[in-house]
């Protein structure tokens, strides 16, 4: 059962909307299901160990947030049955369920996004977006963003070093550090503008005019047309949206 990018994308959309529809205990079950999905199901396994490290750190962080959210809401809200606590505080059942509802929702959202972005390199996403009709310029912009995401942080540290060597106040008081912020952003922007001008010329010099489609490695894998599975998930997503609107109106 090979999941292509289109099917994974429509599944993720459906999961995001489902997390808003489900009550908190069903969201909790869905979250555990997704964790199982991640390890058991090949197409959802993380692509690189960097994304694996990043996602497990994030999962732990979010679990703490859910706990925090539940306790804080429980203490603050006064409706529902109130269980007295030592020191005069009251923990309201209504507050706890409210905290759990949003906490579980956040966990499901985080997990479904991690499943998608962890297992789909951006170039594959760009390839799919182009096959469903995105303009070639926008696809090129998304791919170029990846290049800049790799180079801009290094350039920032190089500029930071060069300006500090010239006496820029990077460790002084807050006002001086704000000036240093400008001293680093200005060369970054100027060099970014110059590089953008050169890159736009380089693209045109090799015939890029937004007409011809970009080719990707292993072109045959992206079946542009809508498959049955992604159609199913899109219909389910629409149902969720209808459900949310109805619930909001009837409240």
């Amino acid at each position, binding site marked *: 059962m090979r999941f292509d990018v289109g099917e994974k994308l429509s599944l993720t959309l459906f999961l995001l909307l489902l997390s808003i529809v489900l009550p908190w205990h069903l969201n909790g079950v869905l979250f555990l299901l997704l964790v199982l999905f991640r390890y058991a199901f090949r197409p959802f396994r993380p692509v690189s160990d960097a994304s694996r490290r990043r996602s497990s750190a994030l999962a732990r962080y979010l679990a703490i947030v859910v706990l925090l959210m539940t306790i804080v809401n429980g203490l*603050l809200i006064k409706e529902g049955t109130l269980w007295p606590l030592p020191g005069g505080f009251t923990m309201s059942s209504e507050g706890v369920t409210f905290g759990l509802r949003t906490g579980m929702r956040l966990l499901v959202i*985080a997990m479904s996004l991690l499943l998608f*972005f962890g297992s789909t390199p951006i170039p594959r996403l760009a390839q799919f977006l182009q096959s469903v009709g995105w303009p070639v*310029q926008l696809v090129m912009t998304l791919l170029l*963003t990846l290049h*800049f995401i790799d180079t801009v942080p290094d350039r920032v540290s190089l500029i930071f070093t060069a300006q500090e060597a010239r006496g820029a106040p990077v460790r002084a008081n807050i006002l001086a550090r704000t000036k240093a912020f400008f001293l*680093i952003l200005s060369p*970054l*922007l100027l060099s*970014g503008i110059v590089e953008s001008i050169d890159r736009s010329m380089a693209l045109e010099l090799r015939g890029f005019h937004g007409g011809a489609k970009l080719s990707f490695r292993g072109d045959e894998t992206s079946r542009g047309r809508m498959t049955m599975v992604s159609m199913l998930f899109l219909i389910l997503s629409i149902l969720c949206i209808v459900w949310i609107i109805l619930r909001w109106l009837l409240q």
Partner: protein
Amino acid sequence: MLQTRPTSGSFFILMTKTVREQFQLEIEGAGLPFVAFCIALNLSAGQLAAALKLPIYLDSVGTVLVAVLCGPWSAISAGVISNVLASAFGNPAMVFFAPVAAVIGGFTGFIASHGWFRRWYIVPLGGILQGVIAAIASAPIAAYLFSGVMLAGTDVLVLYFRSVGNTLLQSVFFQGLSSDPVDKTITYILVFLLCRNLPIRLLQRFRGGNNLPHNKAMDRSYAL
């Protein structure tokens, strides 16, 4: 239709062109790589602020730059892609705030094409207005989806407003009002300081070159 040159007050052009044509018009010249550069800027401005231990976040400085130098539709796509990639690289909630980034890009692009970035005294006004609009746009999302907990320092404000007896939506909106206008005004002023003296050789390569302080030569040789 005769190719009209978008000057300030180019609202007419927004109406008649389809979005795709307008986007392609805006990224003519050096626009396309610049949008990609500004998206990367959005994602790394926060790191730089942290390296300098500054309490500002400035994750829309790239979007505002694109709005000023290219135009509203490319700024909207820059904002949306920034938020989607931010959620891919570790902050999952950001994808739900993509509409807010679109509003920031569109609004800034619109007022930039009306010359709001031409005089230094109009820029802070634009920043405050943008901050209010951003607060209005982000309040329902933060309230209904995340019940006001955004894993950031400002969550404390929300709790304070709620304990004083406001509803969830009101307290999230008040928290937004207290931080967004400040953040956006700093972003606007920073972009103005960065762009006001850009030389003509660089400005003429961007569709929005005329949105910046009056360059004598720019009038005669309007870009693209």
